């Protein structure tokens, strides 16, 4: 059944075969039945003839019989075109009356018994079919044979039977075809909920977990499958939620002590120790925040949101500008100046761009510049004046805790992993190449938003 993958295809194929078989068998059966009925009519008619003919036998005073067949009846039995023939045979087996010119019996007397149907092929090639009925006169039983030449059977009845076959084909074949078409429509309708469920199922991607297949209107044969799929989705979403709750709790557990330490350090007297502790705390805080971001992004669901990439980049550049300025680096936002709507969660995208900018600032020497470019079609490019990224490192750079320079304690390699993860959750991608002038060019490509008017952010 590999050739017919769809249920509808299988049903139609089997149905076509069934229609073919039925369109042959049904006329044959009907033809047989009709023929039987026609034969029955013939026999009734012959029997009637035989009874009528035997009624013309009259007893004679000499103990013999007379045969008073009316002239108008006789016409039926005489001549070469006579439809019927008769013969009367006495108990001794002698033919006493016969419609035939040679006065012979229709069927050999010894071979026939009263009530028998007999068929005989004559020397002329025509077939004689007849019946023998008994007639008792004065305790002597005569046999009356009445026969009919089958090549001259009743024309009307034969016409009906002969014309039946082509007619029945003309009627049954279109009917069967119509039935086939109706069945296809019925099946299409019956399978529509299955198709709808499939469409819905196709929409379930890594960005959505809240979608469930509709269970209403589904055939009971398919319902268990859909139900099982929905149950699996429930478990998946529950797992995601548990992960999110854990991340939120972990954030609270990690940040509360950090806040207390920070407040304690801030209350110390100014001096080099306080500054050193603050710097350590800031590094610690950055790593904790990045780890929490990565953990949250593991179970992050973008949903049906859209975001203005231009505004997101403007926010990220504005947030990071003080850091760049403090390190004597210039930062600018270029590209288009109108909103660029993409499929995505504004805050997640903001974190991705912020991490790209942070990375660019870190690798750009003092007096260098960082340029963020927003392009139509959902593309962000972050260009820096740093040393660029070697060909061999262009994939590994997006892995967690990857560090180009393992001797620098402050540069944990989570920033670009966050960017890569955000790109992944948004069905986008991030790549790096070197600029012709040296320096790295990171390109984050997102999916443009298809429709207008959706809520810009999804509530958790």
């Amino acid at each position, binding site marked *: 059944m590999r050739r017919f993958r769809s249920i509808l295809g299988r049903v139609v194929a089997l149905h076509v075969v069934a229609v073919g078989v039925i369109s042959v068998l049904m006329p044959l059966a009907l033809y047989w039945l009709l023929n039987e009925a026609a034969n029955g009519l013939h026999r009734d008619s012959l029997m009637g003839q035989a009874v009528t003919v035997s009624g013309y036998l009259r007893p004679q005073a000499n103990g013999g019989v007379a045969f008073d067949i009316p002239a108008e009846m006789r016409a039926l039995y005489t001549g070469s075109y006579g439809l019927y023939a008769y013969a009367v045979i006495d108990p001794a087996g002698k033919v006493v009356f016969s419609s035939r010119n040679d006065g012979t019996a229709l069927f050999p007397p010894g071979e026939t018994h009263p009530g028998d149907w007999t068929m005989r092929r004559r020397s002329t090639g025509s077939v004689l079919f007849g019946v023998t009925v008994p007639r008792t006169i004065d305790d002597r039983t005569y046999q009356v044979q009445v026969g009919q030449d089958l090549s001259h059977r009743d024309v009307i009845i034969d016409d009906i039977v002969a014309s039946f076959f082509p007619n029945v084909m003309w009627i049954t074949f279109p009917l069967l075809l119509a039935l086939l078409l109706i069945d296809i429509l019925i099946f299409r309708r019956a399978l529509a909920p299955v198709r709808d469920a499939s469409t819905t199922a196709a929409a379930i991607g890594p960005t959505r977990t809240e979608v469930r297949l509709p269970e209403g209107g589904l055939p009971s044969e398919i319902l268990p499958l859909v139900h099982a799929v929905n149950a699996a989705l429930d478990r998946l979403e529950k797992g995601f939620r548990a992960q999110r709750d854990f991340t*939120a709790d972990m954030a609270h557990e990690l*940040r509360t002590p950090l806040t207390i330490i920070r*407040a304690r350090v801030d*209350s110390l007297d100014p001096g080099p120790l306080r500054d050193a502790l603050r710097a350590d705390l800031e590094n610690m805080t950055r790593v904790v925040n990045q780890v*929490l971001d990565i953990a949250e992004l593991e179970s992050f669901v973008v949903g049906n949101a859209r975001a203005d990439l231009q505004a997101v980049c403007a926010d990220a*550049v*504005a947030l990071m500008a*003080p850091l760049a300025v403090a390190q004597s680096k210039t930062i600018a936002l270029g590209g288009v100046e109108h909103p660029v709507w993409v499929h995505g969660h504004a*805050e997640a995208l903001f974190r991705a761009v912020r991490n790209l900018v942070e990375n660019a600032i870190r690798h750009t020497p003092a007096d260098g510049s960082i340029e963020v470019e927003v392009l139509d079609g959902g593309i962000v490019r972050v260009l820096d004046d740093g040393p660029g990224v070697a060909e061999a490192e262009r994939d590994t750079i997006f892995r967690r805790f990857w560090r180009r320079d393992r001797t620098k304690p402050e540069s944990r390699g989570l920033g670009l992993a966050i960017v890569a993860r955000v790109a992944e959750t948004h069905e986008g991608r991030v790549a790096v190449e070197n600029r012709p002038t040296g320096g790295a060019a990171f390109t984050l490509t997102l999916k443009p938003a298809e429709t207008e008017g959706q809520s810009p952010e999804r509530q958790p």
Partner: protein
Amino acid sequence: MRVLLVEDSEELVALLKKGLTQGGFLADAVGTAADADHALSAMRYAAVVLDRGLPDADGLSLLRDLRRRGDSTPVLVLTARDGVSDRVTGLREGADDYLAKPFAMEELIARLQALLRRSDNLLGRQLTFGNVALDTEGRQVSVAGVVRPFPARETAVLEILLRRSGNVAPKRLFEDHLFGLSGDVGSNAVEVYVHRLRKMLADAGATVKVHTVRGVGYLLSEDKTA
């Protein structure tokens, strides 16, 4: 200046109270949303510092109730969550500002001052950054204590920069303030005034510098080398 501190960690409350006092605030501290409700109905505070993670409720539900009652006391929300999906929620619920834990004490003080300035002009009319000061009522600029006659438009640019000191002020903000809704802003009109201001500040020996963040806005930074 009395503020209400709603935070359940006693250790943090003690430290924050100390820091706020040093920053010129008087702080009342409560540990639950219910106590905060009582305190807010009993007394009018200049601002509320509200932690999201309270033992009896989410800080945001307290904020919602407050706003529903028509109370517009400025609220600074503190949160330990700051997750990808949490960050925007607080601001949408009616918070005036949002600070993620852990934070620097100076940051908290600066944000509170900015909030109060924004709301009722409760905090002095003097904006200062580095050796530059602006009297927002008298429209007077002084650099290193010497009053300088800055033109109105340049003073307006400086005011926006001072109010946002340390952060980028978006270009649109200048356009709105300088030219109102009358529109017809030349594409480099703001840049012209910023350029003049830059020159005036440098001539006056200011320790602050106006940086252009092309495509976004302007940023005032303290030039420590000057």
